[in-house]
């Protein structure tokens, strides 16, 4: 957590805490998250519903819903701390330096505004385009995301487009100003399986072209394995494991990550019942003391409920928040092995 930010980092999140203070209860949606995304990198943020992954996206955008606030931590975009910006400054950042693609393409475009208007809005707002420039820009963007007749599409209303087409439009809007970072919150969850791959490819290809980093928020590990360079597994408001994608799939260390991977049915091998992780995510206003996964963890031992474990490096670029690895980096992450006393 040094102040010197490496120049190739697009986004650095340090010890972020986004809490909702409601009378006597404090809901800790995000509680000490560290995250780093390099330029041109795609980082996947994975976790169950309610683990704080979407809240992470909103915190970076400075759009934490009312009642919540960022109580501590820094969000450095190109070295600039977004948590210190005024509302007005943040409006200039949104859409120009960070942008977002949402899950639900059917409702993420305004039904009463034409496709063209919605793309032109961001161009006019951030790049100061005139109407003519914005119109040309919108046409270019639409053809870039794969529409054959952009000129005609500009005057169309969203109800004429399918879900996949709308998501293309959303990508066009998100990348219009060539932002440093694109946050994609479950961008393919609502789409047909056949379209998902296309949309992901498009998002990645275009981001590479304009050198934008991608923060992919998802619960779909298949999507992760396909596009992410690095994966951060989130549980109850904290990162519990962070590793390059291949290494995470080859050598998952945290019991939660193992549980998640076990939930994926295997295509080969004997047909077995679908596995699931017992129990459910703890309510963020009643977090267990110590390791947050301990109550559901199959290999928890006496040390787990005492204090929150720190992130431990098990191999280069691979960190895990689990006592099984504390002090024994060479244990190769076998949770069934003898736990340290």
């Amino acid at each position, binding site marked *: 957590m040094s102040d010197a930010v490496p120049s190739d980092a697009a986004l650095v999140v340090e010890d972020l805490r986004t809490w909702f203070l409601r009378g006597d209860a404090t809901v800790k949606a995000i509680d000490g998250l560290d995250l780093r995304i390099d330029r041109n990198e795609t980082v996947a943020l994975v976790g169950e519903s309610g683990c704080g992954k979407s809240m992470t996206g909103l915190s970076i*955008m400075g*759009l934490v*819903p*009312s009642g919540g606030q960022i109580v501590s931590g820094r969000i450095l975009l190109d070295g600039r701390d977004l948590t210190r910006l005024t509302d007005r400054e*943040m*409006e*200039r*950042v*949104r*859409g*120009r330096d*960070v*942008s*977002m693609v*949402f*899950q*639900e393409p059917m*409702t*993420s*475009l*305004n*039904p*009463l*505004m034409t496709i063209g208007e919605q793309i032109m*809005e*961001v161009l006019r*707002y*951030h790049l100061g385009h005139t109407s003519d420039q914005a119109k040309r820009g919108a046409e270019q963007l639409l053809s870039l995301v794969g529409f054959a007749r952009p000129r005609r599409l500009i005057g169309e209303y969203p*109800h004429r487009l399918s879900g996949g087409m709308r998501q293309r439009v*959303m990508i066009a*809007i998100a990348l219009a100003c060539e932002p440093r970072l694109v946050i994609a919150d479950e961008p393919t969850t609502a789409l047909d399986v056949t379209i998902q791959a296309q949309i992901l490819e498009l998002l990645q290809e275009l981001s590479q072209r304009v050198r934008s980093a991608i923060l992919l928020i998802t619960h779909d590990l298949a999507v992760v394995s396909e596009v992410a360079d690095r994966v951060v597994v989130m549980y109850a408001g904290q990162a519990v494991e962070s590793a390059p994608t291949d290494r995470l799939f080859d050598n998952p260390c945290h019991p939660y990550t193992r549980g998640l991977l076990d939930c994926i049915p295997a295509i080969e091998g004997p047909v077995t019942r679908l596995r699931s992780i017992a129990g459910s995510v703890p309510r963020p206003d009643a977090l267990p003391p110590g390791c947050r996964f301990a109550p559901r963890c199959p290999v928890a031992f006496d040390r787990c409920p005492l204090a929150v474990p720190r992130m431990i490096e098990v191999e280069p670029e691979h960190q895990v928040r689990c006592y099984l690895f504390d002090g024994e980096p060479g244990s190769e992450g076998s949770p069934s092995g003898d736990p340290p006393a």
Partner: protein
Amino acid sequence: MTVTQGPAGGRRRTNVNLIIGIVIIGSMALVTLVSFVYTPHDVNAMHREHRFEGPSARFLLGTDNFGRDILSRLMYGGRTAFYVGIVAVGIGIVVGTMIGGLAGYLGSWVDELFMRVMDGLLAFPGLIMALMVIAVAGPGTLNTAFAIGVMSIPGISRIARSGFLQYRSIEFVQSARTIGVRPAVIMAKHILPNVMTSLVIAGSVAFAGAILSEAGLSYLGLGVQLPDPSWGRMLREAQGHFMRTPWFTLGPGLAITLMVLGFYSLSNGIRDAIDVREAHG
């Protein structure tokens, strides 16, 4: 929702409400417009020898206690009705939408403050409120319209609030925020058009209410003052002579009824039309 849809063939049932509403309001508006260039008789001309007459070729709807032509006065009175309605609904929609919109979009204490004030306004019976405004500002057509407009603010602000509340967290509004659009622009450009249909319906209902209120206030002698002809005022003048000449009450009574019926039909028709559109996707 599906009531207005036809059987499997998808044939839509005719929107009777909309047609009735448009026909009634349209013809009332037309007659009122005609009054600017033509009325059968001068509005205030008294034909002493023809007092309390029933319908005839010369006086189509009969004459009143001063021998004035009732049809001409009704046509002229339409101006008052529309004037009061437009001013009142204008005030109600503009102020109500601003208050309700801010309350719904911003939420928290703004919502609490504005809506409690609206609840306070709502707690006064509308007519008493209007009486209060008129007592302070004095009677007259404009003041009456103003008083009625103020009365309609709480109802419209509630409708606007629920609309803005509904759209505040919808994804396209979120996404407008993520591209840095300012709150004021989001409210005006992204949410308002989506809330407009329910506001138009509310405005149409408020219009009917405004005409009824104006008639009521004028009937009490507090609204529109002489010599402006008003349907409510005509009704008041007519009631003393009801036994002698029922024709006199029939004209203004019918005009008020038709106008109110027309606006209610219109609002129902608009709602049905939108429901069909939504049901069909």
